[in-house]
């Protein structure tokens, strides 16, 4: 809701300034930084093994070339004592083989590279069923179409959700996140509006009649929710409301960028009439 509020205020400001604002690309001399380790680790309850990608950051002025981190030791363990070492399937891409995601279990991912260890713990939450998927006209632009997800939040705060939306098989880059701060124990029907940001949804993401729509619902743990919430803060780039930008809150110790998420994965599809 608070985010909605900001969007509306911004819309009002836009209305007020209609035709007066202007944009241009500028040259800026930016500071540089040491290359940082970026870890992206996912383990879902869909029977697939754990996947981890290791890369390094680049200076801002350079081309988008993010070197893969090879030869790292990546281990996954759970709270029952099971453990495996992930093998490097391709440079920087590490895959597990035996451990599977089970709701309720806590998983520890340990990445060792260059003599430093980075550790993250993520608990695969109890699964909340994905009850329904439908579409409705947009609230402000009534000609647009929004996906609406439906589920019943279990009583007790802390349930967190991440939705990914695919239009005709193409992933919308927006991280649609929700938690139950205001909806604890409620039946929720939430439209996947670009509130909370996450990239710039371009025209190719706009839903239209005849499209095939697929939505993936993940139950994520609260720390992963915090990661995506703070990631969205720097992705949304809302000029009037930009906070002092900061790096997202990673659940890795040791100063690595990125996250490790053990989550559920439920998918629904529909054809937009």
């Amino acid at each position, binding site marked *: *809701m*608070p985010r909605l*509020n*900001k969007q*509306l*205020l911004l819309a*009002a*400001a836009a209305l*007020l*300034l209609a035709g*007066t*604002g*202007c944009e*241009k*690309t*500028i*040259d800026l001399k*930016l*500071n*540089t930084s040491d*290359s*940082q380790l*970026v870890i*992206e680790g996912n383990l879902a309850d869909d029977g697939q093994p754990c996947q981890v990608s290791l*890369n390094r*950051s680049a*200076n*801002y002025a350079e081309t*988008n070339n*993010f070197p893969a981190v090879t030869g790292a030791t990546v281990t996954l363990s759970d709270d029952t004592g099971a453990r495996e070492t992930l093998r490097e399937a391709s440079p920087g891409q590490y895959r597990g083989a035996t451990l599977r995601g089970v709701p309720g279990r806590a998983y520890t991912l340990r990445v060792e590279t260059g003599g430093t260890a980075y550790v993250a713990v993520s608990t695969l939450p109890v699964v909340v069923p994905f009850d329904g998927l439908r579409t*409705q006209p947009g*609230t*402000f632009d*009534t000609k647009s179409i929004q996906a609406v997800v439906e589920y019943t939040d279990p009583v007790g705060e802390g349930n967190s959700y991440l939705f990914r939306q695919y239009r005709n098989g193409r992933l919308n*880059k927006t991280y649609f996140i929700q938690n139950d*701060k*205001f*909806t*604890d124990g*409620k*039946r929720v*029907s939430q439209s996947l509006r670009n509130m909370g940001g996450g990239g*710039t949804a371009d025209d190719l993401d706009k839903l239209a009649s005849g499209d095939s729509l697929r939505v993936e619902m993940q139950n994520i743990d609260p720390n992963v929710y*915090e990661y995506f*919430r*703070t990631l969205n*803060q*720097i992705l949304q*780039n809302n*000029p009037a*409301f*930009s*906070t*002092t*930008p*900061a*790096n*997202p*809150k990673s659940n890795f110790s040791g100063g690595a*960028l990125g996250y490790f998420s053990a989550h559920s994965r439920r998918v629904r599809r529909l054809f937009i009439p």
Partner: protein
Amino acid sequence: MPLRFSLLGLCLLLLLASGPAWAQSRITLSGTVKDASSGENLSGATIRIVELSGVGTGANAYGFFTLTVPSGTYTVEVSFVGFATQKRSVTTTASQRLDFKLVPGGSELTEVLVTARSTDAGISKAQMGVETIDLKQIAKVPVLFGEKDVIKTLTLLPGIKSAGEGSSGFTVRGGAVDQNLILLDEATVYNASHLLGFFSTFNSDAIKDLTVYKGGMPAQYGGRLSSVVDIKMKDGNNQQLHGSGGIGLIASRLALEGPIVKDKGSFLVTARRTYADIFLKLSSNPTTRQSSLYFYDLNAKANYVLNERNRVFFSGYLGRDALGFSNTFGQTYGNQTGTLRWNHLFTDRIFSNTSLIFSKYDYQIKISSNDRNFSIDSKIQDWNLKQDFEFYPSSAQTLRFGGQAIYHTITPGHVTADASSGINATADKTNYSLETAAYVSHDWQAAPRLNFTTGLRLSGFSLLGPGTYSSYDAAGNVLAATDYACNKFLKTYVKLEPRFAASLQLNEASSVKASYARNVQNLHLLSNANASSPTDLYIPTSFNVKPEVADQVSAGYYRTLGPKKEYSMTVETYYKALQNQLDYRDGTQLQGNFDVEASLLYGTGRAYGIEFLVRKDVGRLTGWLGYTLSRSERKFTEINQGAYFPSRQDRTHDLSVVAIYQFNPKWSFSGTFVTSTGNAVTFPVGKYQIGNQLVSYFGKRNADRMPFYQRLDLGATYEKPHQEGHRFHSSWTFSVYNALGRENAYSIRFEADPNDPSRTRAVQTALFKFIPSATYNFSF
């Protein structure tokens, strides 16, 4: 608490002990100074005895003055810039009442265009770091959308900087936006902006003048670290009924003032409303047609002279912004203030003012979509009882003392929803606190050219029950939460705030001054947005949040120049040390955050600089040139490894030039030029990918700069020649905002380059370029 009352008692004792002793040997001349045409008080008018060198005084905020002289025959001279000087011969055998009515213009009529202030006054008084803006002065300064605005004009003075393009927020001497105490007829205005800050809440039709204290605040003011902006509403014309108004691009105004009983009482009512929403109705889009976007404000004031010793005032303000999209979303917010005042003369040398002040800022958001109907409410409300005494023991001394108690009620935004809604209601976390203060301040002309102002303010702040308050560990995790009962003093902070100022007049035309002031602040605004947001959150000092403290030392050199003293020059330098400053942990979300204290960081700060100001207040060409060289830094253990870093409002260079030229009686032209270093910001120092999306990597806080800012505004005013015998006056004001069309960066974003996916680029957004406006003004 007892300590505070005993201080007040001490003052009273002092008063009783010293009063009668003086009265025996001297005679008191007292009275008021008013504008003959409107009956408005002329506060700051100079009263002097021609025969007695160095014996003189200034009229107080209510136009009242008192002078103590030996018996004899004297010429009393009363002057105020923009008014004809009046002389009156009096033979004093006993104390007597002298009321003056000054006629505007006088001999200087054609010369006085900007009647800003007495040019000499700044030289002799000990007070420094003070600037006054007269409303007549700003009328011709070009502004955005042609809406003249005291707050925006204020930011053209050295040491005072606009928080951003088109913003009503401002920072003073490196302080934060919330460290300014904005008073409208003594009532605190918590959110001084309309429409995201593009307009301030102050309708210039209702305002008489504005005084800003950047440093060395007199002891009667307190509660904020950086500045006091004291805005006074007009009393209303007590001679005859007058009206005025204006039709502008964005808003229209109407004001009416007149006598309740001639010479005894008057009223003033002003109203203003924007009409951008009228154009929404013309839209082809049904959603846009049903949307609302407007603000209005109403000011009202009335005063009545009961007798020579008693006068009462009422002033009120009501402003509201509304924003709505069809039936699904509605937001309103605004301030309400009310002030009841009673001026009383105990004797002809003891002036008293008692005020009961109400102040409130609130917002409401209503959302209804699908099965989610709910509303969010928030408010901050004050009841303030204030007592001020002014005692004039001799013509060389003024003693001010008094006290106040403010009861604050703060309700952070909370959700109300019925059981059928898809949203849960949230707990109402209203908190209560009591802010108290007692002060004494002594102005003393120790020698003809040496002045001292010595003051002491004792301020207290108590967090009151009921409420639930938590303690936290270093990482912000709750250690324990405690419930407290009603009517309990939960935590009290008592602080002593010494104030001192001295001036030494070197000769007729120049003086040097020095001052020291400590200020304490107990209400803290949490905002992490660039633009002022109506949902910004105020929090009180609590168990965890300590009172903010600022110690400021400053020194200055003041000089009038030119054969007619038409120029005045000021150089002031300052150093400010700040304690218990607030910031947030990275990634904090303030809105809808019920445990905001968990996200706070506590640190220190320092700000220093030098300010130059040259003004020309008389002649065909008037205006000023201000330049500031300054630095403002903060230090938090958790940010930038505990090193000092520039605060967002840090701007190394800041230059503003304001010029108004009266070409002939019909036409006048004006221009404003502003240029400054860009704000300190945080740009990416690297980039990486998450889920095939580019993400910026950030290094040190505020290590970068926005591009430098530069703007030229131009204005022209045409006054229709006045027809003999007609009361109706009219004028046109034309202006162009950002006439050079420079694209000043409002924000910069970093994104993938659409033309070359292997690279990233920086894109700046500029807001206003060549914004023309025209306003028609009239009065009768």
